[in-house]
């Protein structure tokens, strides 16, 4: 029974690898099953496929809205529910280094998810995933199942005369314009949270950690630009956000560290007070690229 089970497992492995090979030019058949799988998939995509990207963006879910909106030689390694520290740690542990790293400074008080990063570089498994793409998170059978359902739904809706309403692009934000009472409640809570007396000692220590990580990156020859994602203006102007901004600029002075211009939050719309909606994400992505090229023209191509 044991032998038969192992043989069947091996056969399934080979068969599934064949399926993945057959759909390799149709990536839309694979869809992330959850936020956490999405994060792991992004990280593994960088480690195994895109580690030659010249520009890497690290940050939280705020920056994750920029995925697919940046040029092909850029890579957005922003993780939902996590922060810049995870992205920076992955870059530190990777052999290849990009020319430029854009560091989001909205979410600095969330520590690195050590288990997440350690699992990516788990001895043995790191190499196995390199040799056997079937072991990577994005290729999980559940992802194929979900992707197939999405494709089937889209095709069916198109056939039925609709406009294919299933959002095939993941992370696509839908603006609710804050009209919904619950959304207003969520935004209100975010504003209230920003009004609370911040723990300045904790913020100082987080910013100090961020500075140390950024300095280490720069010492390894990587250029770094800091940037702040636009959010709801009331959240942007909250005491907590202002304190964080002032501590960051005191520890990492603009005379020494590069910053992208601070965005005018009034010009952007969010879905929940912090995450940009689809149209705003597109505009900000373009603005970011324009500013980066202006600052570092050698990154034009």
């Amino acid at each position: 029974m044991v032998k038969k089970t192992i043989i069947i497992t091996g056969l399934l492995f080979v068969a599934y690898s064949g399926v993945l090979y057959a759909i390799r030019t149709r990536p839309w058949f694979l869809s992330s099953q959850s936020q956490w799988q999405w994060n792991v998939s992004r990280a593994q995509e960088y480690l195994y496929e895109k580690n030659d990207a010249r520009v890497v963006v690290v940050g939280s879910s705020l920056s994750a809205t920029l995925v697919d909106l940046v040029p092909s030689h850029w890579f957005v390694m922003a993780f939902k529910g996590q922060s810049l520290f995870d992205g920076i740690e992955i870059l530190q542990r990777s052999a290849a280094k990009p020319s430029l790293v854009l560091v989001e400074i909205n979410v600095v008080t969330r520590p690195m998810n050590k288990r997440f990063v350690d699992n990516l570089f788990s001895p043995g498994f790191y190499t196995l995933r390199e040799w056997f793409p079937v072991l990577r998170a994005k290729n999980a059978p559940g992802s194929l199942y979900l992707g197939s359902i999405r494709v089937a739904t889209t095709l069916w809706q198109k056939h039925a005369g609709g406009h294919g309403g299933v959002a095939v692009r993941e992370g696509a934000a839908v603006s609710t314009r804050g009209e919904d009472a619950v959304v207003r409640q969520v935004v209100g809570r975010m504003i209230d949270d920003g009004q609370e007396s911040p723990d300045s000692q904790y913020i100082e220590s987080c910013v100090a950690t961020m500075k140390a990580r950024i300095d280490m990156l720069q010492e390894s020859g990587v250029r770094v630009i800091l940037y702040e994602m636009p959010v709801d203006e009331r959240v942007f102007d909250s005491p907590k956000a202002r304190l964080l901004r002032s501590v960051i600029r005191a520890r990492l002075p603009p005379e020494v560290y590069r910053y992208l211009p601070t965005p005018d939050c009034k010009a952007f719309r969010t879905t929940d007070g912090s995450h940009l909606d689809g149209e705003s994400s597109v505009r900000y992505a373009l603005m970011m690229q324009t500013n980066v090229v202006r600052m570092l023209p050698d990154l034009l191509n």
Partner: protein
Amino acid sequence: MLFNSNVFALFFIITWALYYLPVFRRFQIGILIVSSLVFYAWELPVLVVLLVCSCLVNAVVSYLVIYGDRTRRHACVVMGVGLSLCALAFFKYGPLIARALFRPTSSVGEFLLMIPLPIGISFYTFQGISLMIDALRSDRIPEFRAIVHPSFLKHLQNTTLSIVFFPQLVAGPILKAHDYIPQIREKFLRDIQWERCFRLLIMGYFLKMVVADNLKDHTFWIEYPYFLMQPTMTLLAMLFGFSMQIFADFAGYSIIAIGLAGLFGYDVMTNFNFPYIAQSFSEFWTRWHISLSTFLKEYLYIPLGGNRKGAIRTYLNLMIVMFLGGLWHGAAWSYAVWGSVHGLALAVERFISSKITFKESAFVRVVKTVAVFVLVTFAWLLFKLPDFSQVIQYLQAIFLNLHRQGDSVPATMILLYSLPIILYHACHVWRDTRLVRWIRSHDPLAYGIMLFLLVTNSGSPSAFIYFQF
């Protein structure tokens, strides 16, 4: 140390190899004890002291009961059980007491809030209590006398092993001394039931790593304030998913523990017996967390009088037992409410069945099964949201968010990962049908699929839910 971690795999291989090496055969018990203490000490070494003290108290008390002054046997047990419960109360319920009785800024309040929660304390405390009481009952049940060896050192060794045995140390099954201690002897490689252990480990890890760990990524949004924005169907789907998740997580752990114990030559009791096919709450509690429910029945419900003191007293006993059973799970009032809900359900069910007899038909059986499942599922909300006000808000949101539209992905994925649990229960219900007999005769296919999914489709690793108890 998680069962699904690289470090555990290494730890297990080393322990197992040393255990069966002929040159170390006479040190098998010592090897298991030392490795179990290493396993326990991995996260917070200082708490091993508490575990060792617990073993010592249990061994001394149970030994004195059998071989000490017979006039002081009861006093000994009362003292031993009292000490164990005091330790449990202090370490587990200290923060709850602090929040209820003291200001957080007071020195006592601050001190109580800082107490670390020793992992597995609820489980090993109950195992120790079982040993002490079984020793006391050896007058009425002579075979219980054999669990206390005449040599104190040997008895201490056996007691320690039965309590710290690492496969079940941190989340059960709660081993009863009279089931486990008689098994302690030299073990041989040839006695391992390889196929049984293989099946158990694959099933256990599949339930935990594929089903539970993937479901948790979708039931995460039950947490406050995320659930506020979810549409009704998603809220219901997540609740259903959490019901599946908690079963897969806990049953998965128990099955892994049974499989691991088997590899060391020990038989550990089954802890789950297809609980979601129960047609009544009393049946549910004979199928869910069996080691806890039998412990509560044997050591609390029956000593309180059980159902032998009239209807009202029976209902009261059920409420008390389930209230304490709920509180055992965690130091928050929501767990006590959860227990009380089950106690009330048991009492009401008993009352109704004494007044009304339902006609037995397939339809009635289905209705009963669904009713029990729905109530049990809603009660799990108290596990996921320990703040009672958030539970109320969640229930309100189910009714208020009917107009909201959202992503159908969570419901789709919850259904996918719940399917194994549904099939698992269905195969048991229809086990005598030709289809299920055919499936069972082609076991390698099912286990091959599970092993394949284990390798390619595991969710993000997380601790077992019951580790927090």
